[in-house]
């Protein structure tokens, strides 16, 4: 996310930028997040300034990406024996209310037990009261891509599935990068400044220049339910006293997250069944029917937390640091480390400021006020778009949530009315557009870009047809289309397996029957 933000910021300032992503846009830490632009009330215990900065920047993001954000309202139930009583919880929310206007959010409300149960009948009868808190939900994949798209529109080059394999150096100065493209070819690019915005991979990337950037990577997982489980989002306390969240997004629910020091391979992070049980145990206490719902997958990511010794993972700061390595004798190389999704724009601004200082380039940052693509004008009513393009209104609503005021342009391809994914629902035209214009190179890329197979069927009903549509755009042969579908099903299985025990096997048998041959 931050790399895309830096590319957008610098290209808006008139600089020539090349952005390289080793996987797909948002496929790393960003996609494994809680999908929220939040102010961080948790940080009130540690550092109010982080809360202020985070809330203020969340407000900017809400303004420039209106189609991608939606209100997420939490009920924070207070149970007997909870660490914080209702008065303490309300005090925290009263303090947080001072920051809420910065991100265009409403103040908290306090509810009695009866009122909380009326608002959210799924809560436990044992609660003694509740307070509410408002945050913003966001589609992080689209947020990354909107930044990439805008950077490209302002002259940047952006390549996904392109891995940096080395830094080009000249007498201690970093003067470029060597990279392997999606076709396997190795190329070189020269630059006056190279920015290392590789999140948890920052130590490895800086190691290519012989530098030591120290992080304390922390793994987090989420359980994904393919529908809205509760009216309101809900917080819960884990067995070890951590705050967990059940976040009701537009059409799905995220339940998480864990926070554990991670020492393994960043390119292969598995979800353990113990982690799933840890989360379910906590939510069963406040939302007793949680185990009656069928999760569809899990997600995981590794936070690039700044290093600190002698602290529990939860107590680590989410602050960030822009490091100009010139002070360590390596000129032309800047690392952005730490931080979180809600502050990506600010992180990008400060990184870009550092780059501009090095280049002697004087141009102000405009990313806080310049709308992202799709937000340049007001969106028309979804029903009007649906009528004109002969698609269900619900498909139009979803289309607008991804493309904003540019939605109709996406349907220009002539296949507007045909749905390829009924869970979402999504049209063939949008899928074809994503392959043609949005750097989709696999079905997994389409999952991230347009939500392919993100619903309850997990691809059983749409993956083969989707391979046909994308394959037609990208010139795949019949066997390539089949292989693409198989690759997607195999990859998706890794995220599904840890929650299969939760009433999912019956569906899995049906899906395997429907997709016979793809599992071999």
């Amino acid at each position, binding site marked *: 996310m931050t790399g895309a933000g830096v590319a957008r910021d610098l290209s808006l300032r008139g600089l020539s930028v090349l952005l390289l992503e080793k996987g797909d846009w948002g496929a790393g830490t960003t996609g494994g997040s809680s999908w929220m632009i939040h102010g961080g009330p948790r940080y*009130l*215990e*540690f*550092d*109010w*300034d982080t809360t202020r900065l985070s809330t203020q920047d969340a407000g900017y993001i809400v303004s420039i990406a209106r189609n991608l954000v939606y*209100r997420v*309202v939490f009920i924070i139930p207070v149970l007997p024996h909870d660490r914080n009583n209702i*008065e*303490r919880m309300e*005090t*925290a929310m*009263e*303090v947080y209310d001072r920051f809420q206007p910065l991100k265009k959010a409403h103040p908290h*409300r*306090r*509810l*009695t037990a009866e*009122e909380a149960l*009326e*608002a*959210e*009948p*799924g809560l436990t009868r044992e609660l003694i009261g509740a307070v509410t808190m408002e945050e913003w939900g966001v589609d992080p994949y689209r947020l990354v891509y909107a930044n990439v798209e805008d950077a490209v529109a302002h002259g940047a080059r952006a390549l996904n599935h392109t891995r940096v394999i080395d830094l080009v150096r000249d007498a201690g100065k970093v003067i470029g990068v060597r990279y392997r493209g999606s076709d396997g070819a190795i190329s070189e690019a020269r630059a006056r400044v190279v920015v290392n915005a590789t999140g948890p991979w920052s130590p490895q990337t800086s190691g290519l220049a012989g530098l030591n950037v120290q992080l304390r990577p922390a793994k987090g997982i989420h359980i994904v339910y*393919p*529908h*809205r*489980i509760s*009216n*309101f989002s809900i917080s819960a306390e884990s067995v070890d006293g951590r705050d967990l969240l059940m976040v*009701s997004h*537009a*059409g*799905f629910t995220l339940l998480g997250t864990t926070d554990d020091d991670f020492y393994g391979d960043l390119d292969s992070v598995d979800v353990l069944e113990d982690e799933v049980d840890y989360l379910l145990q906590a939510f069963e206490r406040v939302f007793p*029917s949680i185990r*009656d*719902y069928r999760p569809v997958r899990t997600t995981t990511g590794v936070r690039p937390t700044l290093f600190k010794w002698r602290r529990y993972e939860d107590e680590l700061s989410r602050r960030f640091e822009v490091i100009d390595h010139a002070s360590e004798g390596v000129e032309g190389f800047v690392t952005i480390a730490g931080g979180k999704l809600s502050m990506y724009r600010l992180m990008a601004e400060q990184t870009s400021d550092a780059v501009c200082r090095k280049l002697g380039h004087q141009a102000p940052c405009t990313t806080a006020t310049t709308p992202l693509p799709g937000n340049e004008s007001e969106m028309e*009513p*979804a*029903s009007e778009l*649906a*009528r004109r393009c002969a*698609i*269900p*209104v*619900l498909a139009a*609503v*979803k289309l607008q949530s991804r493309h904003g005021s540019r939605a109709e342009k996406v349907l220009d391809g002539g296949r507007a009315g045909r*749905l390829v994914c*009924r*869970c*979402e*629902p999504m049209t063939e035209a949008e899928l074809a557009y994503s392959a043609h214009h949005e750097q989709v190179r696999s079905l997994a890329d389409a999952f991230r870009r347009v939500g392919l197979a993100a619903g*309850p*069927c997990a691809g*059983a009903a749409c993956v083969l047809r989707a391979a046909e549509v994308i394959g037609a755009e990208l010139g795949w042969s019949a066997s390539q289309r089949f292989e693409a579908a198989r690759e997607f099903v195999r990859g998706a299985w890794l995220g599904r397996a840890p929650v299969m025990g939760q009433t999912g096997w*019956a569906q899995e048998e*049906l*899906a395997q029957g*429907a997709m016979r041959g793809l599992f071999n």
Partner: protein
Amino acid sequence: MGRTDSLAKLALAYGVHLARRRLTRPRSQLEELLETYAPDGIRALKPAERELHPQLVGCINCGLCALAAGRIGKTRLPDLASSYMRLYARLRAASSDIVGDEADLEAAAAACPVGVPLTEVAAIVRRMTVG
């Protein structure tokens, strides 16, 4: 220093909060809460619907219901039951989708391999699309 400062300010806020609670009469804030977020589609389900909810959202989109109801390939209930239920907070804009939709929901429900009560799903979707 930052942490000490933060905790001190929270302690002060706690004292002020307790004093205010003693001096003012609490009033219900539920109505305000629901009114504030009604435009966002939050709080759409009733307690009775909540009881049934795990079944209401159990659709796995296999398509058998649409086949049984003779509506395969169309874009209304029950073909999109799964989409409508999972996006129930955004249904107000979608009322025109299901106008005049008279699918054989009993036949569709009978064909469902995971037991989704499609008649109830349709009733909820219809209620929510009209606000």
